[in-house]
């Protein structure tokens, strides 16, 4: 057969075989067969010396051209096959992204501790030390040092769990004040502390009473602390917790360990002061008690009340949480129903 016809036939057959290859393996076989060392093309090249010299140039060119064609077709076919494979793989791996994920438990901080942590951080930023006192407190620190001698009528106001004649479950965190006052070295600077913790009173539990709850005590003592300072401090704290647009007011009150004593009201955040059931139609909500430290408390700690004085305040953390989150039963804090508690997983700030 004429060499040119052979090449022509080779071209036709080769292209058909490339087209027939369905996967990489087959394609490789075809490549070997068409362009490999033992392929017909190579054979033709090797037999050039037998060809008429006048044809050699032309044959050489045609063989190379055909090899280039085969190579390019083979490459194209390979790309096609790989792409098809990838697509097949992807199709196999396809998932329904709209199906839900597997959820695990999400942690949450107790609402009272959210309020407490927030307040602590706020006061730490203002240079206050956080102090922890004992919950099993002595009558001495809980009452006597706080200007509540035995037989003081105000002791009736807070029915106390006694353990023995000298020890009790603290009914207020004020004992921390006495302990810190006694220890503080004023030569090293003013005293600024907050003392949070659990307190206990002999109240039967109902929607508004709990025999256990949480308080935070605050105390600032130095030489020139004024009631204006108390007012300013409480105002900023109330705004921090209840919102910058809240108004506050002080009213006279009575606590044995402060004189003057005041209670602070915050303008009702439900009705903005217009009057509603939450504020009992007064427009105001009582949030805490405070006052200027009673001179007896200062003196009881061995400090000269003519030189040193200060202010103290007490925050009911349960009450803050109740107000802030609109909770209507204080027992919700202590029954630990997870449906109640898990709401607060998003309340961290």
């Amino acid at each position: 057969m004429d060499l040119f016809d052979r090449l022509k036939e080779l071209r036709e057959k080769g292209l058909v075989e490339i087209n027939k290859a369905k996967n990489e393996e087959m394609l490789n076989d075809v490549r070997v067969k068409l362009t490999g060392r033992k392929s017909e093309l190579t054979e033709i090249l090797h037999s050039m010396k037998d060809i008429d010299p006048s044809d050699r140039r032309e044959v050489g060119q045609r063989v190379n051209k055909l090899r280039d064609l085969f190579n390019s077709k083979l490459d194209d076919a390979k790309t096609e096959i790989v792409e098809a494979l990838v697509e097949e793989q992807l199709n196999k791996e396809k998932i329904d992204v709209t199906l839900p994920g597997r959820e695990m438990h999400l942690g949450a901080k107790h609402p009272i501790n959210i309020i407490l942590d927030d307040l602590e951080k706020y006061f730490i930023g203002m240079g206050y030390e956080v102090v922890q006192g004992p919950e099993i407190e002595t009558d001495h620190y809980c009452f006597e040092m706080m200007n509540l001698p035995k037989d003081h009528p105000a002791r009736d106001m807070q029915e106390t769990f006694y353990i023995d004649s000298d020890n009790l479950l603290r009914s207020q965190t004020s004992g921390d004040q006495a302990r810190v006052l006694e220890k503080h070295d004023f030569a090293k600077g003013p005293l600024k502390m907050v003392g949070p913790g659990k307190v206990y009173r002999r109240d039967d539990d109902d929607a508004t009473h709990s025999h256990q709850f949480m308080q935070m005590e605050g105390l600032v003592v130095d030489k020139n602390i004024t009631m204006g300072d108390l007012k300013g401090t409480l105002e900023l704290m109330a705004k921090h917790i209840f919102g910058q647009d809240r108004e506050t007011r002080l009213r006279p009150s009575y606590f044995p360990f402060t004189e003057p004593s005041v209670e602070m009201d915050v303008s009702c955040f439900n009705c903005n002061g217009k009057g509603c059931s939450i504020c009992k139609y007064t427009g105001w909500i009582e949030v805490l008690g405070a006052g200027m430290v009673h001179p007896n408390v200062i003196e009881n700690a061995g400090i000269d009340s003519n030189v040193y004085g200060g202010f103290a305040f007490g925050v009911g953390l349960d009450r803050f949480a109740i107000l802030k989150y609109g909770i209507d039963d204080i027992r919700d804090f202590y029954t630990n129903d997870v449906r109640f508690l898990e709401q607060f997983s998003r309340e961290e700030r």
Partner: protein
Amino acid sequence: MLVSYNWLKDFIKLDQDPNDLAEKITRTGVEVAEVKHPEDGLKKLVVGHIIDCEPISGTHLNLTHVDVGEKELYQIVCGAPNVAAGEDVVVALPGARIADNVKIKKTKLRGNESNGMICGLQEIGFPDKLVPEKYTNGIYVFPHDAEIKPGDSAFELLGMDDYIFDFDITPNRADTLSMEGSAYEVGAITDVPVKVEGVVVKEDGPNWTNDFTVDVDSQLAPKFYLRKISNVKIGDSPLWLQRRLWNAGIRPINNVVDVTNYIMLLTGQPMHSYDARAFKTHKLVVRKANKEEKLTLLNNKEVDLDPNDIVITNGEDVVMMAGVMGGLNSEIESDTTDVLLESAIFDPTLIRKAALRHANRTEASSRYEKGVNWDATTRALDMAALLLRNDASGTINEGVITGSSVKRKSTKITTTISYINKVLGTEVSSSEIAAIFARLNFKIEINGDNLIVDVPARRWDIAIPADLVEEVGRLYGYDNIKSTQPILAETHGGYSKKEETIRRIKNVVQGQGLIEAISYSLTSLEKAIGFSKEPKKPVEVQMPLNSNRSTLRQNLMTGLVDAASYNMARKQNQLAIFEQGRVYDFENNNYNEHEHLAALYSGNVYFENWQNDNEKIDFFYVKGQLTNLFSALGINLNDVEYRAEVIMYMHPTRTAGIYIKNKYVGMIGMLDRPVTQSNKAMKDSEIYGYELNLDDIIPLILNPQTTAQSAPKFPAVERDLSILVDKDVTNQAVEDIIKANGGKYLYNLRIIDVYRGSHIAEDKKSFAYRLTFLNENDTLTDEIVNKAMNSIDASLEKQLKVEIR
């Protein structure tokens, strides 16, 4: 204390809106909890005069014709048993509105037209406890001498047009437990002068003082005065007085008892009236009660007197628990003619304790315990005597018997204007301060900066300069004090190291997906000492609220178990909760508090899902969480050891004590079956948890921050080791040997398989470990690793008789 706005007008000129006034009082003095206006919501109630009254046969009803001040009489059907012709009554006219928003219409009853309703006091909003006893089951009848005419508004006559302020007084403001004291307070607040009347008594009976002796222990009763009023006629009090009692929340009883109550309301001085027949001995003694003495009080309560109760006796029998309540044996009765009137001051503490002890607090005792005005004792006595003459036609016998009359030192306080301003942070001038004390009716002297204040006896709460600061501050107005921030030397606030560490621990646990719980510290004795390896002496409170809240917990787990029970009873079975708080015990003669952490898990690792990945929470899941916690806290896991342990309420073979450096720091395990099986909600659940004593753990993690190490530069070599051991050999025992013999390049050891089953002998199990060797400074040679492995194999074979597979 209920303070009547209309009564206040006896003392001060008031023209403000009562609600505005109440707001001002709250801001400046005493919290006004509520302002009541009794006629609110009612209308068309008038006085009616019953002209005739005939029974309607076959019924309990009467047909009346009533003059209501109009041309025509009103025909009204009335079912009250005490309706009668000639009486003045309260009539609700057609169109009237009475209590509970009931509207009165013309009706027909048994064929008789009825044009209105004759009312009882309850029907127009009076609480039961205020209705005079004889009218409790019928209509109210106005006293005969009342100056009223048909058609008059009933609201005014019954005091329902008044505004009643509920003073929520703090214990220091006992001075406002009287109208006079309240008037002084309101006068000071509104800056209006207060007029309090004195009294002059013209006695019109014979002298009685020589015929009667009074023996008073002046320690018990520093002031004690007695008058005798003869020839009284017991009856109803005049309407004006009843009205004032009603609005003060006191039920009118009769014209003698009402007077003593009225004078107490007016002056704050508790008064008592005795039927003189109780003193046939002509003798009155004030002393402490003797053991075994008894008294039946006016409220019919029989009390066993305590040797610390003050009593009044006639020399033989106890007739009154002094300052608290009279005895039935000296009660004023309808046939009483001679009355002994007592005005006295008793020891406040003894009175308070007596009232508490016998659970019998009264208007009188609550005033005594808070402190009464020492300057009002005789004035009150004289005013009461005068009223008894007016209201009960009594004769005032000549002479007052004084049982005791201790003088009280007047309170003079010396301070300075600058001190007051320094504490308040104000610049109030001396003239402003003088004006404030004038409003309070306090006498003062000002000399330059110096201020001397003479405090009236009614204000026993004021004793030191700080008390004066409060008076100035509140009347100057807390609103007028400028808000400032303390200007102080800088302080470094913060948590203690321990607190900071606790916070870190809580953050890790919360990050592991646990919800924070807070439980009650008080629990039952049984629960308090459970879940502990060695319970300590428990701390119990005196007089617990109930036996479930009697003892301070020694573990947190019990609270979490309560929470689990509560949640599971509500079908919340997937639980991951923790608590951080204190436990309490008594040891080494001290009350101790320790910070603990406990966690409780139940259910599955994942929420229910469509992939059916239902991996159950088990011991090893919880242990893994705990291991992660230890790692996060920087505790060297090689120091942590778990020893199978028996702990009360925990599963006997699925519980471990946790030891760090050989010190017991807590436990981990499954709740014991009896605990879960005995609880309906928890039945058949496997509940796991752990509890740690943080007081033991915190010192271990308070190390200074470690410096970071770079990742290993040389390759590690891994070798697996599979062994067959007796089934009772623990992983810990094997690991201990591997670690002891693995050489210094043994970098990590992990158990990767545990097998017991058909392929091996029944008393055997197989463990597979993956050992990682690493030399941080050089590439490890096989030779070194082989040597280590050979040493491990040999030791295991020798010490635990294992078979290397």
